[in-house]
């Protein structure tokens, strides 16, 4: 019949190859990441009318009722929150550009600044900032080159939690989960945090138990120190029952006795206590930390560089560090508030009532809110960098930590 111009199969393969080549080119020249690093965009000069909505990324328990609704009532900004379990998740979420702000720990905040995902914060627009504890201001994790990038939220230490019925005697040291012999007693019932930053916990342990390594800062580890920490965690691995990153999942596993001892946050501890489960953690007279100290966090509210509701975000930042709100969230989650005025006993009592817990006027003392020397034993999460700070640049960087984590979990 009709003479065909080209063999259809050949045409098909050619077009296939062409399209794939097109995709390859596109991938190569596609929207590339910002070249400028550290170049700060403008901070807001004036807080205008609220936009009616606010999208936040936060740790579990940071954005909840009653203060979330109070904020909506006061400012008209309706909050929707996306809870995340690790700092990397938070950075990922912020990079989608679909959120206005984030409660960033130190190992997220610096990444966000480096990646230009957050704008500097004009602290003059946040009146309550003035009365924040001074040892939280202008810290390396929230201030870069003298420029403020966020408003401190609160701080705390990672907890050692155990089932008080089955774990005896009550541990006073991290060795119950990190010493290979002791950890074997609870084989398959240990719950460890599923993130590479957990390597720092091993480093904190080794700082006390292996002084020969000379570990000073658990986030600045040279090859030898790093290998020791990684090996410790590899030895822990056979005894670990779960690596958790979802707080609610960990609550469930402790509640069902699938985990009996592990590292956790106060949020889970109080939730389990509220359910009447037999859990215990390092006592208040030890500052809630085992004898080696602990890793912890000091969180900062940061505003996205592509925030769609910047006015609401500024209103939130001022609100969350207002005495009443800060006292509420601190007692709800179980951390030291950033706002010094939140520690007034009337404020604490009123806040306790609002969230439905027993009043505890000694809360701030218990949590060492105004005691900078205590926090020397708590090593806030921060991004590991190659620059060891003492002239050496052979410390293991973030990428090395990330890769080692896959190795540790086997």
């Amino acid at each position: 019949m009709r003479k065909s111009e080209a063999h259809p199969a050949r045409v098909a393969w050619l077009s296939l190859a062409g399209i794939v080549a097109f995709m390859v080119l596109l991938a190569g020249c596609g929207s590339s990441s910002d070249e400028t690093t550290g170049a700060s965009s403008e901070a807001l000069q004036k807080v205008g009318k609220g936009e009616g909505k606010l999208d936040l990324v936060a740790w579990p328990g940071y954005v909840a009722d009653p203060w979330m609704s109070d904020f909506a009532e006061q400012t008209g900004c309706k909050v929707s929150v996306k809870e995340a379990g690790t700092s990397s998740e938070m950075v990922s979420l912020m990079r989608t550009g679909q959120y206005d702000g984030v409660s960033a720990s130190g190992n997220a905040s610096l990444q966000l600044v480096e990646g230009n995902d957050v704008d500097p914060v004009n602290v003059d627009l946040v009146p309550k900032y003035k009365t924040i504890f001074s040892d939280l201001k202008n810290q390396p994790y929230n201030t870069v080159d003298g420029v403020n990038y966020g408003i401190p939220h609160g701080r705390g230490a990672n907890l050692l939690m155990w089932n008080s019925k089955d774990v005896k005697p009550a541990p006073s040291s991290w060795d119950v989960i990190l010493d290979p012999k002791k950890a074997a007693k609870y084989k398959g019932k240990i719950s460890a945090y599923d993130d590479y930053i957990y390597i720092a916990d091993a480093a904190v342990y080794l700082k006390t138990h292996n002084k020969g390594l000379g570990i000073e800062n658990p986030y600045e580890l040279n090859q030898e120190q790093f290998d020791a920490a990684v090996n410790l965690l590899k030895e822990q691995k056979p005894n670990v029952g779960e690596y958790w990153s979802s707080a609610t999942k960990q609550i469930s596993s402790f509640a069902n006795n699938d985990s009996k001892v592990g590292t956790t946050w106060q949020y889970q501890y109080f939730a389990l206590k509220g359910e009447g489960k037999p859990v215990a953690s390092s006592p208040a007279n030890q500052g809630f930390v085992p004898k080696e100290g602990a890793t912890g966090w000091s969180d900062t509210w940061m505003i996205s560089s592509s925030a769609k509701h910047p006015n609401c975000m500024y209103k939130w930042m001022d609100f969350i560090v207002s005495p009443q709100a800060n006292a509420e969230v601190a007692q709800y989650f179980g951390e030291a508030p950033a706002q010094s005025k939140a520690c007034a006993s009337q404020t604490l009592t009123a806040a306790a009532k609002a969230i439905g817990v027993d009043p505890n006027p000694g809360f701030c003392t218990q949590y060492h809110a105004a005691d900078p020397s205590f926090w020397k034993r708590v090593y806030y999460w921060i991004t590991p960098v190659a620059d060891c700070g003492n002239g050496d640049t052979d410390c293991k960087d973030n990428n090395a930590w990330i890769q080692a984590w896959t190795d540790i979990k086997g």
Partner: protein
Amino acid sequence: MEAADALAPAAKRSAGRRLADLFHGRPRLQVGTLLAGPLGWLVIGYIGSLAVLLIAAFWSVDSLSGEVNRALTSANFDTLTSDSVYREVAQRTILIAAAVTLTDALLAFPIAFFMAKIAKPRTRGLLVVAVLMPLWSFYVVKVYAWQTMLSSGGIVNWALDPLGLSGPGYGTTAVWLVESYLWLPYMILPIYAGLERIPDSLLSASEDLGAGPGTTFRRVILPIAFPAVVAGSIFTFSLTLGDFIAPSLVSPDTQFIGNVVYDNITTNLPLASAFATVPIAVMVVYLMIARRLGAFEHL
């Protein structure tokens, strides 16, 4: 064509008519137009994105900001080959996938045979519905049900306790159990379809020639049904190979391919992409073998 034209009114032919005439008698044009949409979608949208995945495997992340750096580098593949954990994870996953496939084939055959050859038509209809129903309950819920059952206070331990035994708890055994459970219907249905195709006369002939049921099974049924088994195995294998949700719920201390990829997405997307090429390679090989064995006729 000419006859139809002669019968049509002398008035102008509609645009649709002219278009139809364009296609008539030109099978290549018809095929080309028909395939343009679907193939365009699949090639540009899907194969193109697989190509992007492959390219992303050669990117890296900046150590300070965690942002993706598009300069091409083979660092990820170097890591995959030099660090033994990736090989171990891949091996572990492939082994479990094979175990699940074998288990499902063994579990599926009896019920498929019963449905195809023995059940009365009404029973068969009911059985088909019975096998299909679980597919409509959410995969997530089924995994969650197993997590609940295998928990230390769950049903499995409760049932085995009087016997002095205890359940497998969480771990690799649990993953094998759960995955075998989840994908069983995908194995039953192709085998059922394949067995249905075997004419009864063939089985009677075998019997007439003196073969016992075992021999008939081995030398008549199995060879004919084998391609169907392979077809079902494509899904049991592939679905197990990439699963990360079931392992994270019933084996939260073990990494499988899916977990490593998923966990690395927020921290090191290029490495995750690089490791994701492993299941692609495995499945492409599997599919090619399956095609050879005639499985594609039984999908």
